[in-house]
């Protein structure tokens, strides 16, 4: 396991030049993944269509991915990236993996190559759930990152099956009659575990050491490793500048996105979140700073504290119950 101080000094294959929003968690995640994968092995990424692709692979903008300062003489920094259709990231990456393996099996490739897929939660859990689950089921030796921002951001922040209860999206708008999305989100961690993934994790760069540990472990995984990265979306969630990492941290501590790691055949590890609701920061702390929950939570002008809007207690209670149920289910795997 590399030390964080060493990782920080590595080069990242994620370079300046992207058009991701300033304050997007995805660029923080890519920067970190880029450094962790700068480990002496060639890396190939397979991407579906999502913000992390359209904002980083725009011709003729400088492609935001590459080897940075190092020259092509250094094979260990060699880097390839493929974007294919929206839902395809796990499948194309599995194909790349198989091609590497079949060439290695006859000795035609000497060095190992790491193969990584990246999708948004819409790409992986809505249109691409088939692709993700079957790649897991086939035990493809890839690491699949899913950047979970709970919406189809790229097309204008529409509902995605991971959308939190009560969230206002452009297709589940909060109105007088409807309190935002009330469809319980897909249990994607459970699905990935039950499909037989070699490793399933939910982890944020807001917890850098843990993030590093989990990604490095995933890169060593013999089966499919799936890592869900909660990704506060400054434009879609509508929060103030500078709050991205803080919200990512709160998203875990309040139970919306618990840090979770489960290796196949081993008990799960749940981190940075208490099972007991009384010991967790209230959900209002996470919801309050985001306009997508402003129909449910407001800031009390006198106390400066976030509080549930009068008349919305039942909805917020439903959210609390959903979180507790989800946490209990995860703890049962621990």
């Amino acid at each position, binding site marked *: 396991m590399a030390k964080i101080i060493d990782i920080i000094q590595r080069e990242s294959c994620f370079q300046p030049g992207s058009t991701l929003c300033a304050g997007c968690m995805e660029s923080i995640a890519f920067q970190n993944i880029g450094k962790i994968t700068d480990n002496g092995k060639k890396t190939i990424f397979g991407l579906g269509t999502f913000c992390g692709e359209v904002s980083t692979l725009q011709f003729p903008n400088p492609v935001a991915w590459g080897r940075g300062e190092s020259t092509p003489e250094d094979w260990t920094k060699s880097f390839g990236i493929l974007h294919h259709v929206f839902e395809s990231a796990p499948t*194309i990456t599995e194909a790349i993996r198989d091609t590497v393996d*079949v060439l290695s099996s006859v000795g035609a490739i000497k060095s190992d190559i790491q193969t990584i897929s990246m999708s948004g939660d819409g790409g992986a859990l809505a249109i691409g759930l088939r692709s993700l689950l079957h790649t897991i089921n086939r035990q493809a030796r890839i690491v699949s990152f899913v950047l979970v921002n709970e919406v189809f951001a790229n097309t204008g922040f529409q509902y995605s099956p991971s959308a939190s209860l009560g969230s206002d999206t452009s297709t589940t708008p909060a109105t007088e009659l409807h309190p935002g999305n009330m469809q319980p989100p897909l249990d994607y961690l459970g699905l990935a575990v039950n499909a037989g993934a070699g490793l399933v994790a939910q982890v944020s760069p807001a917890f850098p050491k843990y993030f590093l540990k989990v990604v490095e472990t995933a890169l060593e995984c013999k089966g499919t490793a799936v890592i869900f990265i909660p990704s506060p979306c400054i434009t879609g969630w509508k929060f103030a500048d500078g709050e991205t990492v803080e919200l990512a941290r709160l998203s875990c501590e309040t139970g919306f996105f618990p840090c979770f790691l489960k290796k196949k055949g081993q008990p799960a590890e749940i981190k940075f979140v208490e099972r007991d609701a009384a010991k967790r920061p209230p959900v209002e702390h996470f919801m309050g700073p985001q306009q997508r929950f402003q129909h449910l939570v407001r800031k009390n002008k006198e106390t400066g504290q976030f509080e549930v809007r009068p008349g919305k207690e039942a909805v917020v209670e439903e959210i609390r119950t959903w979180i507790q149920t989800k946490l209990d289910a995860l703890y049962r795997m621990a």
Partner: protein
Amino acid sequence: MNHPPIIETTAGALYPEAIDLDLVRKAHVPFAEESKIIEADGNTAAAYACLQMWRCMLFAGFPITPSTKWLETVAAVIRSGKVGTKKKLKLLEAEHAVADYLAGASAACRDLIFTTATSSVGLDHMTESTRSLGGSGLGNAMLVNVYRATANYPLCIEGDPSDALAHRDDGWIQFCCRGVQQIYDTVIQLPCLGMHPEVMTPTMPGYYGIKDSHRSSRLVLEADADVNTFQDRWIAPAKLPGLINGDTALGNCVTSQYFQGFKVDQRRRILRAFDLLSVIGADFEKTFGRPGLECIEKIRWPENEEAVDLAIVGMGPDMGTAAALADQWETSIHKRIGVLAARLIHPFPSHEYARILKDAKAILVLNQAHHSGPGHLSVDLAEACYDLQDPPKIISAFAGMGGAALTAETWQVMIDYATHAMKVPTRRVSPIVVHEGKIIWQKS
């Protein structure tokens, strides 16, 4: 490998030694040590051709009638160990996944050939990916399209080329074959065309489901060594980097400012196929003594290229029946008849048709696929003949849709209709639908 040889390309650095292709070639275990004559159906012939190529290491598939036997044959041969233990068949969960898989694998290594087979709604299910692949420059992807009617209302599993014809805008090089030998020979030649550095376009050999996929006949199976020597003459190591042997990015987004430039480039590449296919075809003929790739097959045509009165143009095995019946029609209607079978269906070789058909008085076009207008081939032929001084009259007939039999009676009705149309002065002739010797629909 810290200081590998590097070739800088417009698409990024290429490491020519990152993949040792010689070792892949050497790992190939021949399926046929020597040329031999066997009996095979179309699907088996197409599968054998793929299995014999050293560049085909990974196969992918999902079953759909009538292409399934291609997949089963690949599975059976690989599992028998006859082609060694290194070739792999990937069974995916849907055709969409198969096409995505081809995209990933073809991009990973541009020097290997990745194949699959599908039909009908299977091809439709792949559309999102096949359209992307069409523009990708990945000429090492090959999809065997076993023609079957598309649409599931009503579902029909028999051969009609509505799948192939609906997918011409996908941007692949599409060839129609008739007969087991032509299927086998086409599959061997197409990667040479698709992977040519000036073409770089994926290829789709196709043939009629049931009528050709399931009908067995004599097949000359060439020795693997000869198949591969032929291909190696045409396929050099790719000049552009793949994901494994390069620093490269594929599938980027572009703004509208650049989109049309990409499309022009795609068109330029596919149009190069017109010239190259006959050169590859001639080399194939010289090597194996059978006709190679050509735009149009003149099944029955005057040797000296003399004009015919009535040219019959269509696709697939039923054109052989037309050629066999043409003698008797010539006697009965006192007109010179020529029969052409379309080989290259995309890009459409308009210039070749115009050259061959310039002196014909009329063209009877056999359309075997549902079309919103007068028929896919009819529209293309009208366009092809547009510049001719005295363009032939185009008579469109639909018959054999859904794989319906084209009986002698059905052909007779079409010939009678064409003969009548040639006599009347009106240029526009209403399309007809013919079934079991009767006109069952005519545009009023």
